[in-house]
């Protein structure tokens, strides 16, 4: 069993350092599109440092589950990031888990996040948990099916193997099944990361919060862990979209040149994806809560069509 320790450390560092930057770039570009100056792209780093330094206030009704949840959210996000090929073809933790473990680990994080929302006995938290679990009940199958479409073509549920097959067999984006799966996974990305039109990441009104509602009672270092975990999850889902469907430029070996090139390609793909997300966020209003399942069911149908067409025509 060969686990490259250096690769694990390097990928963990990349995840930790790049994730807040992606959030910062999204916020900055959204502001620029709305004709504002916006906060600088390194603002999330300053926010995280601020949260880590501040005192923590915990509800007197909360139990150990409330304190346990931020660790689970943060660690599951990191684990998922280690299972995903970002810059190199071979993800460090590829042996320990592939597509199904990715979805399952994210679900574990979401489970404890929802429990952490219910624990302080506030109505906001319960509402956020309820909405999050409902929307993820429809979004998670869509994600699984979209990933399975690529897995069937590659003959494996290992993410690195999928990327490797994609890279070697030529660019298959114009394959209809892959295009449908990409569209489905893009909608799921918006839902899972709490972006408009599913959820507004900048609001704290009870009619419009989903993810923020579960975080309402968190403060200080626990809030830092939660925000960082959410940012890492966002980075991983974007990497999933970028690397599964556009497997270009990933480093096949560990030479510095290949790694540098891989990093450049990765950042370029992320920037394009961030641009797409910013465009969608700025041009769409938030959907009413009971309209969001329609959008997610559309994503589910797209993913199902993609998988069925793969089974029928291959």
């Amino acid at each position, binding site marked *: 069993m060969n686990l490259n320790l250096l690769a694990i450390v390097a990928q*963990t560092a990349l995840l930790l350092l790049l994730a807040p930057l992606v959030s910062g770039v999204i916020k900055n570009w959204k502001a620029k599109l709305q004709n504002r100056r916006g906060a600088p792209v390194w603002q999330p780093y300053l926010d995280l440092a601020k949260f*880590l*330094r501040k*005192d*923590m*206030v*915990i509800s*007197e*009704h909360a*139990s150990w*589950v409330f304190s346990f949840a931020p*660790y689970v959210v*943060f*660690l599951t996000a*990191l*684990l998922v990031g280690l299972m995903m090929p970002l810059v190199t073809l071979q993800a460090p933790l*590829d*042996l*320990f888990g592939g597509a*199904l*473990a990715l979805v*399952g*680990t994210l*679900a574990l994080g979401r*489970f404890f996040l929802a429990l952490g929302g*219910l*624990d302080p*006995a506030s109505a*906001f*938290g*319960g509402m956020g*948990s*309820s909405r999050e*679990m*409902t929307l*993820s*009940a429809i979004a*998670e*199958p869509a994600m*699984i*099916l979209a990933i*399975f479409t690529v*897995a069937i073509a590659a*003959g494996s*549920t*290992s993410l690195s193997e999928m990327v490797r097959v994609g890279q070697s067999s030529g660019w298959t984006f114009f394959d209809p099944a892959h295009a449908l799966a990409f569209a489905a996974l893009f909608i799921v990305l918006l839902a899972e990361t709490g972006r408009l039109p599913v959820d507004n990441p900048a609001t704290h009104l009870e009619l419009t919060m989903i993810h923020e509602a579960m975080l*309402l*009672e968190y403060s200080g*270092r626990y809030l*830092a*862990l939660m925000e960082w975990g959410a940012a890492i999850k966002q980075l991983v889902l974007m990497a999933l979209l970028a690397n599964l469907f556009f497997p270009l430029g990933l480093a096949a070996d560990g030479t510095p040149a290949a790694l540098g090139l891989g990093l450049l390609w990765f950042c370029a793909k992320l920037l394009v994806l961030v641009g797409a997300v910013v465009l969608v966020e700025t041009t769409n209003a938030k959907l009413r*809560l*009971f309209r969001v*399942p329609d959008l997610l069911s559309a994503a589910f149908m797209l993913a*199902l069509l993609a*998988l069925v067409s*793969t*089974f*029928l025509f*291959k």
Partner: protein
Amino acid sequence: MKSRLLKLVNEVAAALAAAWPGQRMRYGLLPALLVLLGLCVWLGPFTPAMLVVGSLGAFTLGTGSGLLLLRRERLANGLGFGLAALGAWSGLVGALRFLLSGPGTPAPHFELLPPLLSSIHFAVRLDPLGAFFLLLVSLLGLAIAIYSLGYAPGFFGRKSVGLLSAGFNLLALASVLVVVADNVWLFLMGWECMALTAYCLVSFEHEEAATRRAGVLYFIMSHLDAGCIILGFALLFQASGDFSFASLHDIGAQMPPGRRDAAFLLFLTGFGIKAGIVPFHIWLPAAHPVAPSNISAFMSGVLIKTGIYGLVRVGFDFLGAPPLWWGVTVLSVGTVSAVLGVLYALMEHDLKRLLAYHSIENIGIILMGLGAALMFRHTGHPLLATLGLIAASYHTLNHAAFKGLLFLGAGAVLHATGTRNMEEMGGLIRRMPQTAALFLVGAVAISALPPLNGFVSEWLTYQALLGGFGTTDHLIRLIFPLSGAMLALTGALAAACFVKAFGITFLAQPRSEHAAQAHEAAPTMRLGMGLLAAACVVLGLFPTQFIRLLDPLTQQLIGQQLSAHLSAGNGMVLTTLASKGGTVSTLGLTLMAVCLLPIPFGLWLVFGRRARLRRAPTWDCGQRELTPHMEYTATGFSKPIRMVFKALFKPHREVQREYDFSPYFAKTLRFDSHVEEVFERRIYRPARWLILRAARRIRGLQAGSIHAYLLYIFVTLLLLLVFAT
């Protein structure tokens, strides 16, 4: 010498009795004796056959002791459930010993009693399939028997604990007979005994009308299923001429296709009713909540699995070489059961009814694996069929473990708060911390989250379904991605349901006085739950070791052994069949998470050394105090799902208010919300009406006139003469 030995035994017994401060067991000698016997069973040179006989004997003794000691409650409790635990332990050791001895070992078979008539042999055979299900029955029996030692005292003075312990022992005895029987008669006797004892136990608290109704419904459904099974066995007997299971092996090849298909359908219906597949599931959510919680756990963990045992025995052992549509039917039925089970579970606010619907969902998942295995047997892919069978068997054991744990936890909560209604619970994590932690383990396991066992068996099921790509040319292969999609939907909905179940029951503030005064469960109750929680963790972290136990099973039924193929990385990693296919390692992920734990602590050290922790009330928008009425309720939690799936649920909501001068200041408020019970209204009520109408018509034949009866006898004689010649 003898007095010194006695003094030593008494000291040990006193020490044990003192070590259980919550238990007022005056008979401290008894647990010491039972533990000693258990050690003898484990360390002694007993063969699996002897251990099975020992298990049956212990259960019989337990039944007898429960029935004889009706007046002495504590002794009946201790002796009855103690013997049950001993019997289960014996069965567990026997089954493990047999399975660990590898695929080549011959199956011990013997007769329990001398044969009654020439064909009614009380023959018992411990083949790998039987041994695996014996393992399941015994594991659950052991945990539940230990739990019952602390649970049954809740019935002291109210109901007869002797009857409860006798019934439990008899139920366990019948279940063991069902899975090790080698003769159709013994199987049917065990089956019927199981059904009748379960009926008696379901109706244990028969003072409530709902309990009586549930008992009668269960009684009717189990006789329907017994009827189907008897008819199925009759068809098999017609082809083989003998009642022993050995003669029925592969009998399907010798039957004409029409009869073989009819037999399959009869067995699917019969075992399906017992297992609780849709649309025969209506007895499950009625019977499980009203039974005593240890019986509910046994029913959900063992009774419905005997239906699965029957299906595997018939599908793989008796009726070999299945046509494609059998696998398609089982897979479809499984998919529908899984999705409908979890959707109806989400709508429940009775904790035990919610768990009963989840049993239906998990039976659906097991059937998905079995259906895939049957389909692969037809298309000639034995390795994939083995993978499907491994996934189904693994999920069967996992479900027994985590569902048993959850029902025992629900029993502890019911015992402590006096209610099953989640809307009256809350805040129990502070009053019952260990029960809450164990329930959380069960909730994480059943939601198929890594690193526990539910995730592993769903991973295997997904791999089996994905393997269907490229196996057949028919359009039928579309069923694989569709089932995979439904399995994904089920998993996500199950996680939502258990966030609700755990969160509303244990977290936040207590919603009623009962919940605020709840007490922690007795030590033996926690021990029984802890045993099952440990099983969940072990089955989740070490799947490759456990799959080795399934080798004899798959070797017997399909002729393949996959444990070497599925294991990599020194047994730490679970792989799939294709080279460079997917891999997963729950142990690896857990260890990695532990290795990453220093990162947050490093951040605290670098940035947050001066940060302090303060406790304050939850943010209440400036109101003076948050009351429990302001928390989220179970019904409210599942409202968005009710709205999303309203085509299925057809929810009905009614608000009535009485007011004097303004509707905003209501005097009384009545709120009613329910979902449509589709199966009762659309299937069972019309069926019942039709049957009763037919019965009334037939009653017209019994006119009371002797002339009519003489005419019937004459016509029958005439017909017999015509057809006999």
